């Protein structure tokens, strides 16, 4: 009996919290049929926004992937004094408000900032930097526990057999952290595509130039183009659903290992 109560309670909670809102976006987007929604997404500004979002993600994700793997290796495999601090700081973007991230970039690259005057702010570079910042920790966080768990026996064995460092990495380390990297990449992508607060502060809102899809949603909503806002939301929500499916496929492999 208690079990059924708990089940109903948990599922009810999830339904109210998750399903109802998301169902409503889909309803609102297609309220007036498919074509109006389609035209709203196919407009040049919407396409440019999507392109900019994808470009930012396409730079942030590989960069953070390379960083994530190297940083995880540095944290787990080499006991460099003081590197524990790096370990703690890697998680900072997870806990920090995106608005604070945006403000930091604004102060650093602004006219009187230390790195001011290089046309970074209010242009694509600022958006890319903000995206990299907020999506930085995910690969590291996924790879570190796996690296800890697999230990060093195989790597040592290979080393004894005379394999070079790079070869060991490629043949032994990389295959065993492959799924963790993939999962981390999916999380990074989700965060990169959905970032709003940090980008909002540094973008300068130039229509069709520095407007990402999330900004497009917010701006169009305010300009009475709710159709366009909801339609772009659908695009983002669909990407979210695909991400969700990928996350789900990748995670069990980690857990049942």
């Amino acid at each position, binding site marked *: 009996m208690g079990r059924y109560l708990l089940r109903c309670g948990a599922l009810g909670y999830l339904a109210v919290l998750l399903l109802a809102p998301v169902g409503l976006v889909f309803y609102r987007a297609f309220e007036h049929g498919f074509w109006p929604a389609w035209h709203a997404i196919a407009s040049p500004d919407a396409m440019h926004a999507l392109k900019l979002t994808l470009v930012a993600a*396409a730079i942030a994700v*590989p960069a953070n992937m390379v960083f994530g793997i190297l940083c995880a290796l540095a944290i787990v495999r080499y006991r460099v004094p003081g590197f524990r601090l790096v370990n703690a700081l890697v998680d900072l973007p997870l806990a920090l408000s995106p608005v604070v991230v945006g403000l930091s970039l604004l102060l650093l690259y602004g*006219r009187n900032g230390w790195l001011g005057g290089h046309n970074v702010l209010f242009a694509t570079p600022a958006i890319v930097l903000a995206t990299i910042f907020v999506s930085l920790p995910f690969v590291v966080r996924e790879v570190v526990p796996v690296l800890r768990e697999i230990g060093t026996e195989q790597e040592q064995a290979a080393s004894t057999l005379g394999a070079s460092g790079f070869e060991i990495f490629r043949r032994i380390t990389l295959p065993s952290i492959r799924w963790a990297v993939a999962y981390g990449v999916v999380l990074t992508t989700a965060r990169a595509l959905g970032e709003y607060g940090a980008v909002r502060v540094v973008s300068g809102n130039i229509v069709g130039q520095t407007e990402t899809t999330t900004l497009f949603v917010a701006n169009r909503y305010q300009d009475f183009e709710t159709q366009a806002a909801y339609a772009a939301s659908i695009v983002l929500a669909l990407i979210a659903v695909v991400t969700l499916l990928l996350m789900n496929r990748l995670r069990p492999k980690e857990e049942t290992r």
Partner: protein
Amino acid sequence: MRRISIVVLLVLAVPALAAGSTKDVKLALVAYSTPKDAYTKIIPAFEKTAAGRGVGFSQSYGASGEQARAVVQGLPADVIELSLAPDVTTLVQSHLVSPSWDKNAYHGIVTRSVVVFVVRSGNTKHVRTWNDLLRPGVQVVTPNPFTSGGARWNVMAAYGGALRAGKTPKQAIAYLTELFKKHVVAQPSSAREALQTFLSGKGDVLLSYENEAILAKNKGQSINWVAPKATILIENPIAVTSTTKHAPQAKAFVKFLYTAQAQSLFAETGYRPVLKSVQKKFHFTSPKQLFTIGYVGGWTKVQKKFFDPNSSVMATIERSLGG
């Protein structure tokens, strides 16, 4: 390896994306949040004139103070249109706009409007005067005066309205206090956000620019608006930046904004034109006791007395809202 080459490709693609305009000159227009609709009509009209041939535009819209700040921080701008003069003063102080920007026939003002009460269709609460806002059960939405230029116009309209009704400055401040304490139910961060909040069903009255009310009505929203007898004349400044690399084109564009054609387009989207000849063609109501910012002390005084974030009339009122 393949992954790396994709990265390289993408890095190369970014500058290509940033470029890619076919126009010879691209003017950067930085404006406050509301005139977007007007410019989507005015810019194509300008591009058809001799002076506008080959001139393209990039447009940025946002809260007035934030836009001024962004330009100070390096947001490229050739022409700026802001909600209120003090935001232009910010740019003058940073040497981005000439101190003589308002020395022309129109004092640097390109459009006008008035503060109105936006109400739901039918005005079931019968709100007509500033005192009606204080009737029990009347809920008011106005943007946050610490972030929104429009909100500052609203506050000064309410204060001046109270003065016009014969109240002393002290009583007028008491009026503001009661309004914000008992009747204001939401303070979104910009005029546009406040309008959206109101349209989504919150509140009985929205304090807003008349042009926002006209815009909402044109977009098919079932609202109406009432101009109170005593209200403030809103004046939106425009200026060419002193850092512009395209001064002739920027000046030509601003000049175009003062033509009958551009002023009519402004008027069609809800702004009160500054050109007398155009004013006659449109039927804007003329509130009997219209006053300007000068009536309540001028911006320099008002900014300090009412909107200083630490010790001002509005800071005190907002503080008393806590709990």
